[in-house]
């Protein structure tokens, strides 16, 4: 009797603690979404307005479509082009992530089956990821300007590809390690080359793993800030840089507009993250968590 009472108390305490953190985790996101629907008088009203009344789409229409008639004139920012940035972000994040996963999975296959990199080399590959970007960005931008890659999509794609490669190799390797080798051996006996085995047997077997890896790395490339800030100037802005332009405007704080843009940048990422929630641990754990 007392035991079950205590157990119920413990369960209640658990829900309390978890819900408390749930509120802390979600409140900023709620505030961003709520602000994006507020008319400009409620952006920093006192007392703060928690739920927009009436909710308005003006922020979205103004920010994303440049609809001037919805803009209070002092907040109109005409020089921005978020749809172009959306395209840039999609192309850059998409292409660099795809390269990273394709190349990473081939490398991972070689490591998993033929040890083409030792375990030490595999760990050393992580240096590529762990060097702070600020440390290389200045010489990189000079080098890029010499190559004519400054302010180009190719430039960003290349550097994102290199800096996310360690994650791609480690993550795809963890999937390939789980594929039974008998299938490949059968293919080899039937005379298939290693490349054919890889492309026609192994990669299709881990395709859900490849998708998970793709989405995992997309989270990193989609939100990257510093390299994009320096390497792209005007032509090729990505969405995080587009958002930071709103901060520099002197017309005053344009919270509603910022929030509308921020929601548009963040929601796709949240959907992606929730889709692969079961694989996130694998992406971060570098073989240190055994299932």
């Amino acid at each position, binding site marked *: 009797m007392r035991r079950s009472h205590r157990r119920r108390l413990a369960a209640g305490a658990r829900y309390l603690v978890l819900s408390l953190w749930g509120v802390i985790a979600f409140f900023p996101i709620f505030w961003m979404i709520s602000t994006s629907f507020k008319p400009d008088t409620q952006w920093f009203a006192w007392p703060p307005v928690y739920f927009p009344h009436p909710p308005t789409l003006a922020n979205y229409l103004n920010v994303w479509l440049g609809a001037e008639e919805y803009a209070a004139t002092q907040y109109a920012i005409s020089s921005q082009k978020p749809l172009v940035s959306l395209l840039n972000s999609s192309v850059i994040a998409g292409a660099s992530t795809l390269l990273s996963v394709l190349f990473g999975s081939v490398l991972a296959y070689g490591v998993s089956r033929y040890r083409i990199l030792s375990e030490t080399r595999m760990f050393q590959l992580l240096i590529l990821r762990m060097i702070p970007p600020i440390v290389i960005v200045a010489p990189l931008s000079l080098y890029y300007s010499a190559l004519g890659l400054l302010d180009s999509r190719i430039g960003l794609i290349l550097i994102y590809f290199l800096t996310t490669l360690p994650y791609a190799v480690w993550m795809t390797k963890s999937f390939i390690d789980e594929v039974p080798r008998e299938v490949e051996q059968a293919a080899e006996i039937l005379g298939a080359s290693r490349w054919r085995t890889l492309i026609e047997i192994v990669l299709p077997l881990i395709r859900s793993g490849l998708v998970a890896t793709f989405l995992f790395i997309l989270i990193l490339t989609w939100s990257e800030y510093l390299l994009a800030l320096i390497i792209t100037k005007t032509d090729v802005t990505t969405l995080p840089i587009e958002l930071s332009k709103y901060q520099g405007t002197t017309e005053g704080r344009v919270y509603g507009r910022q929030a509308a843009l*921020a929601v548009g940048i963040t929601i796709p990422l949240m959907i992606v993250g929730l889709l692969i929630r079961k694989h996130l641990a694998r992406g971060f754990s570098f073989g240190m968590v055994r299932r």
Partner: protein
Amino acid sequence: MRVAAVPAASVALPASARGLSRARAIRRFRWAILAPLVVLLAGVLLPVLFLQLYFSFHQWTVYLGSWWDAEYVGLDLFREVLSDPRFGWALLRSLAFATASTIGCFLIGFALAGLMHKPFPGRTLYYAVFILPMLTVPVVVAYTAEMLLYQSGPINDLITRLTGIEFKPMWLTNPDLALPTVMLLEIWNWVPFSFIIMLAGLSALPREPIEAASILGASGWRIFWEVQLPLLRPVILLALVLRFLEAMAEFPKTWALLQGGPGTATETVPVYIFLTTWQYFEISKGAAMSYIVMLLTIVIVLLAIQLLRREKRSLDAMHESLATAAETTP
């Protein structure tokens, strides 16, 4: 499913013609894969590292014309950086920032993982909500924080209402509070990372030792301290090391929110390097600083790799012995 990883190359091959041609084919396969990687690293990273080295030994700013005939100054720039108190402070700030936020992330993440690792109704929902902060773009975190934290903003309003006490700290403009505020943001942003890793670590714990301990009559606390915690060591190490390194490199939130201000209150190493290079245009000094930071990071990473590899070996060995024990006693 676990498959014994027997590397094909280590399988003893008969020294027949067929074996030799197979070995040659594997070598060719290996280089077909590695060559593009080597070319890319040599094509992108080497020139960058060379340029950085060049600038740390040659005094050049954007006003000085073409960079290739900049004056050679030996170790002067390194001396300048190492005797610059602002750099020292930035380094201290970065270390404090990274240490505090790593510990914060870890403790909260581990606690949440501990509460979550047994199934209960609503677990999936909590999990989904808990990982959301990590999926928020860092720049968005910074701007949302500004909307939340201004003096008459919602956070202060909520705390005032809930506690009934007038609560009006200036989170972002008070120099004593600005760095702790950014730490809190970093913790909010990255608790999910520690949470996910620790949850995976807890779920992957072998059940046998824990059951054995509880049959022997050990209390819950003793099992936690003396069985679970030692088994979790590799995962804990990983969660701490990766988070610390990422926190040392944190730039987007600190920069977008405060640009190192108020004063120099949030001027961490990445922010100071950014200011030196892109606002004071002291490219060479920035390069020297970068070099120091890069060497420091590489040393830390190599040390961490040593540690992680040792842990991974003992982890693998433990799983092997558990597997063989399970085979012999069905």
